[in-house]
């Protein structure tokens, strides 16, 4: 019969004996499962690691960067003049000399696509930026101030949701008398920022009520500091994702508007205007419309996968399927 404390029954063990039972003390540093020390890592580094492990997201990211490089650099080094008309080379199918072929005016499509990419992607990002700016401001004010202001702003937003996106873009373009880079940006953003505003408002409200904000207050932090250190970094993630979610819609919008002749018009190149050119010749030279359309699809696919990857990377609770 041993004389262990438990012989006396649960909980009646004399304090002295309990205190003297020794457990192995952990070595310096915190112990984890296998005994390895924990490495301190920030939210962003964690997110980066998670993102990088997602194959599709990485491929999309690289593809996206390649596209950007192509659009920025190629027109500078191309031997072809994207505006020079040369009917002797018209409507040629893709070949070594012209990897994307030529259009009905003999212009090299490989170069024009890159040039058009500058315009289309540029409009895309600019419009997205405007959408986010308006949306974030609106949503943040509504969410942050709450109460009466929030209610009012949200009612107005509900009303604004009724504005049809494309018709309004058309009207705006008509106001400006035609399409160029900046008019397109305005036209495409004017009726598309509502969803962003709603998302940001929701995010701000959730974060405001979050326990760690209360904890920050409890240790004496005041609102500007709370805003900077806590709310902003968390909303940043959502915003980055929002960029890649809005981008496809804007790109398609630009393409449609230019396609029907309201946006960027020939001879200026945007993917939409190139598609318009190509449409007229679809029977004989389908590649002219296919090329810019594929470019659009490529960009949209990249944006989608990047957005998915970012979403999984930034929200650790998304379970793997």
């Amino acid at each position, binding site marked *: 019969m041993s004389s262990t404390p438990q012989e006396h029954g649960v909980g009646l063990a004399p304090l002295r004996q309990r205190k003297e039972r020794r457990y192995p003390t952990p070595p310096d540093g915190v112990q984890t499962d296998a005994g390895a020390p924990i490495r301190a890592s920030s939210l962003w580094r964690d997110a980066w690691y998670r993102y990088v492990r997602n194959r599709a997201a990485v491929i999309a990211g690289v593809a996206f960067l390649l596209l950007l490089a192509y659009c920025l650099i190629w027109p500078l080094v191309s031997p072809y003049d994207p505006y020079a008309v040369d009917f002797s080379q018209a409507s040629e199918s893709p070949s070594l000399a012209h990897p994307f072929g030529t259009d009905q005016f003999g212009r090299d499509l490989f170069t024009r696509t890159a040039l058009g990419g500058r315009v289309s992607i540029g409009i895309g990002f600019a419009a997205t930026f405007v959408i986010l700016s308006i949306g974030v401001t609106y949503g943040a004010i509504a969410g942050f101030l709450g109460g009466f202001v929030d209610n009012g702003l949200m009612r107005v937003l509900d009303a604004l949701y*009724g504005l*049809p*996106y494309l018709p309004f873009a*058309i009207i705006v373009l008509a106001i400006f008398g035609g399409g160029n880079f900046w008019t397109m940006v305005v036209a495409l953003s004017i009726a598309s920022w509502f969803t962003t505003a709603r998302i940001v408002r929701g995010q701000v409200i959730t974060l405001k009520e979050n326990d760690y904000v209360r904890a920050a207050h409890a240790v004496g932090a005041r609102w500007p500091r709370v805003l900077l250190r806590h709310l902003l970094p968390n909303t940043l993630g959502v915003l980055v994702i929002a960029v890649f979610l809005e981008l496809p819609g804007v790109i398609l919008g630009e393409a449609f508007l230019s396609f029907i002749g309201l946006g960027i018009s020939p001879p200026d190149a945007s993917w939409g205007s190139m598609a318009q050119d190509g449409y007229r010749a679809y029977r004989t030279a*389908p590649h002219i*419309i296919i090329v810019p359309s594929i470019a659009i699809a490529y960009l*949209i696919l990249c944006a*989608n996968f990047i957005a998915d990857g970012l979403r999984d990377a930034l929200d650790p609770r998304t379970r793997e*399927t």
Partner: protein
Amino acid sequence: MTRLIIRRVLWTVPVILLVILMTFLLMRQIEGNPFRHSERAIPASIQRNLEAKYGLDDPWYVQYVRYVRDVATFDLGPSLVLRNRDVNDIVREHFPPSLELGALAMLFALVFGIPLGLLAALRANKWPDYSAMVVANVGFAVPSFLVATLLIYFFAVRWGDIFDVPTSGWDTWQSKILPTIALGLGPMAYFARLTRGSVLETLQQDYIRTARAKGLRRRRVVVVHTLRNSLIPVVTAAGPILGFLITGSFVIEQIFAIPGIGRYYVTAVTARDYSVVMGLTVLLAMIVIVANMVVDILYGILDPRTREAR
């Protein structure tokens, strides 16, 4: 429940007023009016007369109020550019094809998209999932004008002897096939992806585990427990998409020569035909609003938790 519906319906009124106001103000920004910019040079005195006749020389708020009153009585006014035609006539003639096209495309998207997404989710990370998602991603990313062009190219030009499918007009049911597919492919892909994500998320829920633990047959678990709850985000997305389909179909209408309002809209804007633009915009806005309202109500039916929350 009925209270919810009534409230939603009442809310559409201020929204429509706002839409009219904004459209009105925007249109006023476009320089000139249809008479000054007409292709036929109109002498200045006649211009003034015309302006007076159509009330264009009144201050904007007067015009606005008058217009609102007209809209309330369903009088959208005469077209300023096309003589002898009222906006109402134009709408009556050209709106139905657009509406029909939008509805058919929506139906196509739902009927093919939701099952595709469901299948992908139930066989997640295996071949059916991968192939379904490839189809969905491509369908989503490729712009509809390319889809339309390719469809025409293959079915009318290349294989014209095998398939007798018209590529213009909107009279026979065969003529409606290609435009519906072209317009509906994008939304179909979107619904497929959305459904897949939603079903996967629902499958992780505890109550699915409970349903299985009760010994329910797999089909019941999928249909009654999983699908019902997964469709909520799909329904939410369907509203704006329906609105988009009807208001944004002008590209497809142009390609397939469908006599819808899309084409009219563009010409009217460039010709500064105020009343047509106003009328059509108000109409389109109403479509969007109604679609959103229906979605809200459907949401209340599908998710009992929201019924009392408001």
